[in-house]
């Protein structure tokens, strides 16, 4: 998608024009959130608003829609013009008319953006009832069905009468898009519309937005933190940081010749899709092994067995075999529902596996009781996805860090001294010990969580999406830290992720899972470099921005492309 898009229309025909927009909190003293930002969108253009959390990109979109939370945020200066209407000055009635008819928005979370108590067809129809009076109900239905067809939903008559919970995440996002575009607005604001979706679904949604945009000539303001997505869809990019615009450039220019250090830094932090070379094997000792591991939900209860009633069972994971040697990193990749987290939790004995074995340092722990398990828990520790929930908010960092060692008989003083050392190891100041989790940023908390795991001197670290919740630059730092710790301490890491880029950069071996089974397992270089299974291929093909080598500021010279067609395309579009 590197073809240059011709910018049609002169400056006077801008769809959206934002000049010196300022937004501040309404607390006293007022804290500025947007410090005078400028950008404009031409007809039919896609402008990507990129930035890390707290950069103000979402606030910008809310300000345009006139949806700033009342009582806490307020536009204090500047102008927002939508085809000549000054949005900060028009009446609220006019603003309501403009929404949906001239500008529309789609949100990040398709699971909660629809009303669960209304059939989806009626929800789309509601837009027509509000804004296009005089249509008969038959006409409205026809318009909605036509729109459902345009967003490429199957079996549109059935979808029209479905409830939101009957549809998948991708389908719901299509409904949201249909709702947003049914009145053919001039401007579509998409706030991280694909972040909550799997990569293959994401690819389809991005394609759909592009297709509809070309068909209706809609301008798109696309908000994202994902540089891969930006590279795939943007015409121009506006980089934001701390409520200011850092730079605005056409996409090719930005990727090749970023003008500011910040953009350069953002781009270099994007992990490359090309797998790194595997490290030399130094130690053959197997620290973690899974043997025909299986987890099945909905076990037949005694009652069901007695009455002879069949209960539905779900195989969350079956036949999982892997071996992890000291100092190596094994990645488990897959989309949501693939069973990768189930495997991690079985290995940790957070949930009970229903079959097979888990060996930690050669000892099978899969069926040990609570007391017998305790000495082995120490050997294997976990880092969680959400650093905001993985530390007890009521405990000081010191208390969290010494809890484990004290459980295994270390004296409190000794554990405290060790905790201070560990904090230094993960790059945090010593005085962090006396503070509470809320006083730290997400990245810092993840470092604390790592320190807590390391305090147990484990042989294996299980990292379940440990960097997914972090901004890309912070993510790079945490990955670097893990790599460094691994080299120094010889810990083996089981790394669960949905992000192929991250997997490519940190894993020696990769295991790809789909619907509870392993479809491909081998050295990262082979699995991600020349995948054999069609599912792995479809994952690779769906990875956003896969043509671009961000850290080198140029396109990749060798890109994995689909060669054998029939089977894998069927999977992508299933």
């Amino acid at each position, binding site marked *: 998608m590197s073809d240059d898009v011709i910018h049609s229309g002169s400056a006077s025909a801008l769809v959206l024009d934002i000049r010196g927009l300022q937004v501040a*909190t*309404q*607390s006293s003293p007022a*804290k500025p*959130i947007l410090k005078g930002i400028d950008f404009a969108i031409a007809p039919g253009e896609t402008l990507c608003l990129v930035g890390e959390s*707290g950069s103000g990109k*979402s*606030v910008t979109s809310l300000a345009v829609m006139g949806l700033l*939370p009342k*009582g*806490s*945020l307020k536009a204090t200066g500047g102008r927002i013009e939508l085809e000549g209407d000054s949005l900060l000055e028009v009446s609220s009635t006019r603003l309501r008319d403009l929404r949906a008819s001239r500008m529309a928005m789609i949100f990040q979370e398709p699971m909660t953006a629809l009303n669960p108590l209304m059939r989806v067809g009626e929800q789309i129809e509601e837009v027509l009832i509000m804004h296009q009076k005089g249509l008969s109900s038959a006409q409205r239905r026809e318009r909605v069905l036509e729109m459902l067809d345009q967003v490429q939903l199957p079996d549109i008559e059935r979808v029209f009468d479905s409830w939101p919970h009957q549809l998948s995440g991708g389908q719901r996002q299509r409904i949201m898009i249909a709702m947003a575009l049914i009145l053919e607005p001039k401007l579509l604001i998409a706030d991280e519309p694909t972040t909550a979706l799997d990569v293959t679904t994401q690819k389809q949604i991005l394609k759909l937005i592009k297709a509809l945009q070309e068909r209706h000539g809609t301008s798109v303001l696309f908000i994202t933190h994902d540089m891969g997505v930006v590279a795939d869809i943007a015409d121009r990019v506006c980089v934001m940081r701390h409520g200011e615009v850092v730079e605005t450039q056409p996409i090719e220019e930005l990727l090749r010749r970023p003008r500011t250090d910040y953009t350069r830094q953002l781009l270099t932090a994007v992990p490359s899709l090309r797998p790194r070379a595997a490290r030399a094997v130094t130690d053959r000792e197997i620290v973690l092994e899974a043997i025909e591991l299986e987890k099945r939900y909905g076990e037949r209860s005694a009652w069901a067995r007695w009455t002879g009633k069949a209960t539905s069972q779900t195989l969350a994971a079956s036949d999982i075999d892997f071996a992890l040697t000291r100092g190596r990193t094994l990645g488990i990749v897959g989309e949501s529902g693939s069973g990768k987290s189930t495997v991690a939790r079985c290995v*940790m004995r*957070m949930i009970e596996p229903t079959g097979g074995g888990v060996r930690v340092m050669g000892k099978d722990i899969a069926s040990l009781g*609570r007391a017998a398990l*305790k000495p082995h*828990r*120490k050997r*294997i*520790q*976990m880092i*969680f*996805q*959400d650093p905001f*929930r*993985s*530390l*007890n*908010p*009521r*405990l000081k960092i010191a208390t969290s860090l010494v*809890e*484990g060692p004290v*459980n*295994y008989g270390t004296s409190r003083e000794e554990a405290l001294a060790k905790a201070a050392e560990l904090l230094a190891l993960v790059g945090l100041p010593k005085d962090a010990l006396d503070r509470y989790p809320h006083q730290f940023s997400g990245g810092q908390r993840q470092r604390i*969580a790592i320190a*807590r795991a390391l305090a*147990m001197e484990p042989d294996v670290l299980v990292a379940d999406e440990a960097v997914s919740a972090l901004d890309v630059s912070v993510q790079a730092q945490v990955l670097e830290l893990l790599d460094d710790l691994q080299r120094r301490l010889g810990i083996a890491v089981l790394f669960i992720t949905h992000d192929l880029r991250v997997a490519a950069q940190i894993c020696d071996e990769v295991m790809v899972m789909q619907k509870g089974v392993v479809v491909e397992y081998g050295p990262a270089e082979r699995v991600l470099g020349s995948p054999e299974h069609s599912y792995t291929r479809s994952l690779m093909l769906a990875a956003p921005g896969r043509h671009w080598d961000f850290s080198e500021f140029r396109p990749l010279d060798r890109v994995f492309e689909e060669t054998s067609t029939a089977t894998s395309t069927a999977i992508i579009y299933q």
Partner: protein
Amino acid sequence: MIVAAICLASIVIIAILAPWLAPHDPLDMSPADRLKPPSDTYWLGSDAYGRDLLSRVLYGARISLIVGIGSALISVVVGLPLGILAGFFRGLDAVIMRVMDGLMAIPSVLLAIAIVSLISANLWTVMAAITIPEIPRIVRLVRSVVLSAREEPYVEAAVSLGSSLPTVMWRHLMPNTLAPLIVMSTYICASAILTEAILSFLGAGLGTETPTWGNIMAEGRTYFLIKPSLIFWPGIVLSICILSINLLGDAARDRLDPRLQKRGAAQ
């Protein structure tokens, strides 16, 4: 809210200082002074046995507050561990919650009357009778909080750090329940005071030799047409007391429940 706090504080002080504040002994009968109107000696008048109404109302505050605070404390002490256990262990959950469902199915005043009439009525049995029907409310509350908190990653982290189950429950789960518990216990306190008054009024509570707001009213009922103030004064104090406690409970809930607080600034 401040008014409520002041009201409640003064009732507490009155209860503590009743022996010094009361102009007469609440049990001191003087047959000559039956049903006197308010005067210099009897500020609020006297009852059918010539006892000083003011002194009896002041002393009555003691029983009410002891019963209210005591019931709230006991139901928390009993309900909290039961709730945590029910929330944590699936097997126990079924047993504990069915017992609680059973208790909840019985009307609380009826249960209290049954308990009191089974065993003789003294302060402890009355308190027990009032507390037992309140326990299921605490257990349910704690259980629901624990059920959601145990899914938090930091609880899982504690398990994988080898913390024993009591440690996990005490250090990581219990603190989550405190805020809702404080709120709930104020409501229990208020409803216990009310139940005690109802029991006394019905004659199922403490004997008439102990002045409580409930039995002052019960005795005054007979003379309602001649001297309504016998019901009026204890009734007023009772209402103010319960209203203040409930207002304080609401204030505590607003303060402790982040959803009811004003939404913070930037997202």
